[in-house]
């Protein structure tokens, strides 16, 4: 049976003559329990509680996290981002990238093994598969069995469960762009918007396809990070390592046998590390780009080592240097501080500092002044000259604000009409203002003038904006 397991787990080379590509063999990862697997499930619960739950959280009478595409405003708790703030989003992406570099340099593919959505959803889908179809051997048997009532029933049950999870995921995803309560009401009354339905199905299908069918192929053939991770690795990066020196020569043995006397290493060649691997590799062949660092092989191997009464850690998190030099954890930890890590962390910290500073000083008010070009300038009573301006006053804050408008820059310049406006939270108020200047106080042509918009509630919120006044 072991041989069957091994040969099925090792991905085969192309069998078809007319293709140059490797033919994919379905991988049936055997479930495993252990310290690292527990941690992965902790992360599955954490990330999915955040993802499925956050969209239901209210804040100030609205959804706490909402990317409102219709109004072109992103709400993240107390912060409101306008299209003008796209810079922050770009910086946030840079921060994420540097954080990934740093984690990778120190701990290898921690992201892939524990937090990447592909891993997380595959883990959930595998769990469903295990509950309905059984573990590895039962699944392989079922797939080889002839089509019959039982097989169809089991497959239908599994795919229905997958589709339900996928649809809920799609629904949640769309709930970050359309208020999820509106979406829920639409579901309750069966009146979906066409595009919302489409995107729920689209995202649902992507989840079902990626976590149910594609699985490790996403990591092997689609993920760019898997391809360039090597750039961030160095000999002091923690990776999942098989201790070649300790393990070889591998081979089966009886538990009572003095295997050292017969010249064998610690590896009993049980193949468990291969059958639990979600990407179907043999970690004993050394570091491979397909390894997503999930540590399932460590958990599996440790179980075997315990059974054999051998010390744990034949497969373990270690570094290239540590394995070569037989270092313990103290030496490994001491090598975390090194130029690469220092450079990554200092860049990361400075960008985070700049980002936080930018957020803290983000203006609560923006003003755009556009001169009305349809009316150049006109003469009004007393021979004064009048220009028209369109003012866009954006209240970027989360509270209703009252603003007072004023204008300076030319002798006798005055604003005609009401100089106070109130603007609801996170709203743009557009108004036309008439500016008059006595006939003799401006030169012919364009004269610089300045608009001041000041908040009555908060004296610090003020904008000084330049415009030009045309004297015919």
């Amino acid at each position, binding site marked *: 049976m072991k041989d069957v397991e091994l040969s099925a787990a090792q991905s085969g080379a192309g069998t078809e003559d*007319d293709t*140059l*590509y490797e033919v*994919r063999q379905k991988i049936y990862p055997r479930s495993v329990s252990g310290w690292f697997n527990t941690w992965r499930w902790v992360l599955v619960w954490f990330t999915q509680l955040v993802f499925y739950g956050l969209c239901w959280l209210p804040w100030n009478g609205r959804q706490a996290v909402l990317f409102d*595409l*219709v109004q*072109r405003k992103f709400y993240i708790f107390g912060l409101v981002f306008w*299209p003008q703030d*796209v810079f922050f*989003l770009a910086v946030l992406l840079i921060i994420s990238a540097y954080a990934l570099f740093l984690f990778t340099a120190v701990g290898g593919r921690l992201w892939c093994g524990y937090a990447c959505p592909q891993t997380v959803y595959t883990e959930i889908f595998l769990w469903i598969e295990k509950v309905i179809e059984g573990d590895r051997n039962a699944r392989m048997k079922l797939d080889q069995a002839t089509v019959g009532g039982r097989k169809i029933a089991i497959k239908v049950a599994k795919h229905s469960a997958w589709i339900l999870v996928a649809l809920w995921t799609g629904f949640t995803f769309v709930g970050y*762009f*359309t208020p999820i309560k509106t979406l829920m009401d639409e579901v309750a009354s069966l009146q979906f*918007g066409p*595009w*919302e339905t*489409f*995107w729920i199905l689209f995202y649902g299908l992507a989840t079902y396809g990626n976590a149910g069918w594609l699985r490790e*192929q996403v990591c092997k*053939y*689609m993920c*760019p990070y898997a391809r360039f991770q090597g750039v961030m690795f160095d000999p002091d990066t923690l990776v999942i390592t098989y201790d070649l020196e300790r393990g070889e020569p591998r081979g089966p043995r009886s538990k009572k046998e003095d295997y050292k006397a017969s010249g064998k290493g610690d590896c009993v060649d049980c193949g468990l590390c291969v059958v639990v691997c979600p990407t179907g590799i043999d970690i004993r062949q050394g570091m491979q780009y397909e390894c997503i660092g999930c540590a399932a092989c460590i958990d599996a191997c440790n179980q075997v080592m315990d059974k054999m009464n051998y010390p744990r850690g034949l497969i373990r998190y270690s570094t290239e240097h540590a394995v070569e030099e037989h270092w313990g954890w103290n030496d490994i930890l001491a090598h975390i501080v090194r130029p690469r890590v220092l450079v990554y962390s200092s860049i990361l910290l400075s960008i985070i500092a700049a980002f936080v500073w930018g957020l803290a000083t983000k203006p609560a008010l923006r003003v755009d002044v556009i001169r009305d070009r349809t009316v150049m300038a006109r003469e009004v009573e007393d021979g004064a000259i009048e220009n028209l301006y369109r003012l866009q006053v954006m209240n970027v804050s989360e509270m209703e604000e009252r603003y007072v408008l004023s204008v300076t820059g030319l002798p006798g310049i005055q604003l005609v009409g009401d100089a106070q406006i109130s603007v609801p939270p996170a709203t743009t108020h557009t108004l036309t203002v008439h500016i008059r200047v006595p006939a003799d106080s401006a030169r012919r042509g364009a004269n610089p003038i300045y608009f001041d918009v000041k908040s009555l509630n908060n004296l610090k919120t003020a904008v000084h904006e330049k415009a030009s006044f045309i004297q015919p």
Partner: protein
Amino acid sequence: MQRWIWILFPSFAVACLAEFVFFSVIDPQQLYLFGEPVNYSPIATYSICFFGFWLVGMASTVFSVFLQRSPEEINRRQHRSIGHAHRKTVLH
């Protein structure tokens, strides 16, 4: 499968980026279609544009995948059909 991935996935990733950059600077309400202001709902405009970007990306990746075939692969296709006929005659 890999060929499908090469065509669909990089173009999808680039379409996401293009959508993000394009609509962070352009309001869908400001777009014109055949000289008329676009009167679809914003979500419809975002969605249609996304698929537009994806299609353009796919056109490019299909082209790349087409050019990526090695000389052996192109030659092999012709040789094989000739080879089959040849082998048959030899065997008989």
